[in-house]
């Protein structure tokens, strides 16, 4: 089966690069001591089958968000490929990039400001995506927006309230409604519950599971929180200093981690 999302030998470097870092960053850092180039990620490969949930874990600076940003076509790779349903889309620009982001991808950012306009109403934020997808009739858009807000458990009477007055958990739910508005085959989640308090975090995670079961959307979840990954992902990759150091079935990597860094990560869990 063709993966809905595939990343092959993805490398992102910020800086000029030099012979000493061209073959990858030095082992214990992402920054080249010779030329100062920072490697966001180095030769990362992963793939996501339809309906599958893959987690990426790693500490801050491990490169997990860089991989996600490449998948979302925010960052062009230095080398390597990003394929959506088999088509190489790395470096897509202009109308093609906009179309891919509306039809093939949805994203939930860690900070709602990245994904939403806080001065605009909940309904308006979601409608923006439908308009980008070519929806034109006001009544159709209104019906779809209300349906989406209901699906993410937001009170529909808040549809005309600016998102800026919403709580953190509610803002994340608006982001989910917006991301899923066009029924994309791939949903990217970047630390979707960091910054939420524990009870809201549980509710949001449960909602994400629910939406996954109902829509069958494939998900790539980036998190530094192993509990989040355990609850959502069936497979996971562990990243450090821009490289994938281990991958496998989630309960195997968490139950019998092989790499020194994965062992550290698992043992550091509360």
């Amino acid at each position, binding site marked *: 089966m063709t993966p809905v999302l595939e990343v092959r030998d993805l490398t992102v470097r910020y800086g000029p690069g030099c012979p000493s870092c061209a073959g990858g960053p030095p082992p214990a850092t992402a920054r080249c001591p010779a030329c100062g180039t920072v490697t966001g990620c180095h030769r990362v490969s992963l793939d996501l089958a339809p309906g599958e949930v893959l987690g990426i874990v790693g500490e801050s600076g491990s490169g997990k968000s860089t991989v996600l940003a490449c998948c979302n076509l925010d960052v062009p790779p230095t080398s390597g490929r990003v394929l959506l349903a088999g088509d190489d889309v790395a470096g897509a620009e202009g109308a093609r990039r906009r179309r891919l982001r509306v039809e093939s991808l949805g994203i939930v950012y860690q900070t709602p400001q990245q994904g939403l306009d806080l001065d605009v109403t909940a309904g308006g934020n979601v409608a923006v995506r439908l308009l980008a997808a070519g929806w034109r009739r006001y009544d159709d858009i209104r019906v779809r927006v209300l349906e989406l807000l209901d699906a993410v458990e937001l009170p529909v009477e808040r549809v005309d309230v600016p998102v800026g007055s919403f709580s953190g958990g509610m803002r994340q739910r608006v982001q989910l409604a917006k991301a899923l508005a066009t029924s994309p085959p791939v949903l990217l989640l970047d630390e979707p519950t960091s910054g939420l308090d524990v009870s809201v975090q*549980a*509710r949001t995670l449960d909602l994400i599971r629910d939406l996954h079961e109902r829509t069958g959307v494939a998900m790539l979840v980036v998190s530094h929180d192993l509990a989040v990954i355990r*609850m959502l992902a069936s*497979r996971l990759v562990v990243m450090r200093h821009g490289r994938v150091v281990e991958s496998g*079935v989630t309960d*195997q990597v968490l*139950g*019998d981690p*092989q790499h020194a860094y994965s*062992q550290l990560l698992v043992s550091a869990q509360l």
Partner: protein
Amino acid sequence: MSALVVRGLTKTFRSHLRGGAESVVLRDLDLDLAEGSCTAVTGPSGSGKSSILRCIYRTYLPDTGSIRLHVGGGEVDLAAADDRTVLTTRRERLGLVTQFLHVIPRRSAVDLVAAEGLDRGEAAERLRRLGLADDRLESPPATFSGGERQMVGVAIALARPRPVLLLDEPTASLDPARRDRALREVLRRKRAGATLLAVFHEVPALPGLVDRVLTLRDGRLVAA
């Protein structure tokens, strides 16, 4: 015919956090499970009983050896299978009951069992048969006692008719009456043709359940 054949299974834990310290839990272990049989494994705590089940279920990665599953579809070597094959095999052919249930916030006991492909009425009936009180059915197991959680865990693992079941002290947290109920449910699955490998602290006396008892000595299984 054998439902599951293990050959030369060795499992070592290497802790990089303790300077690469190694401990060998399973050493060149062989095991044959006849189709429709129930094998019980006993032995002291920490002897590695659960590690056998976890290697078969692939929660642990074996160092060497093969774990060939022959029932419920084509032959699969779980020691060498890729991640997706492991996940498919678990879903369709290989069940695991553990002492601990990872609960999901907000999901009720009935929902968790129904998620295994049963309708809600049937899911509730299974939980009642195990002895879960009616007023608990619609509550999330996050609020349950250890024993109640174990009942939910057993109901989840037995919900699909998987041909091989791994049971890791499936009744450890249950009172004697509920232990009998759970064992009778397991026996029901055996009579329907399932092959069972179970770790027990104390081998249950329920007639017809356990066919042979093995014990773990120096990382290998021998007759108890």
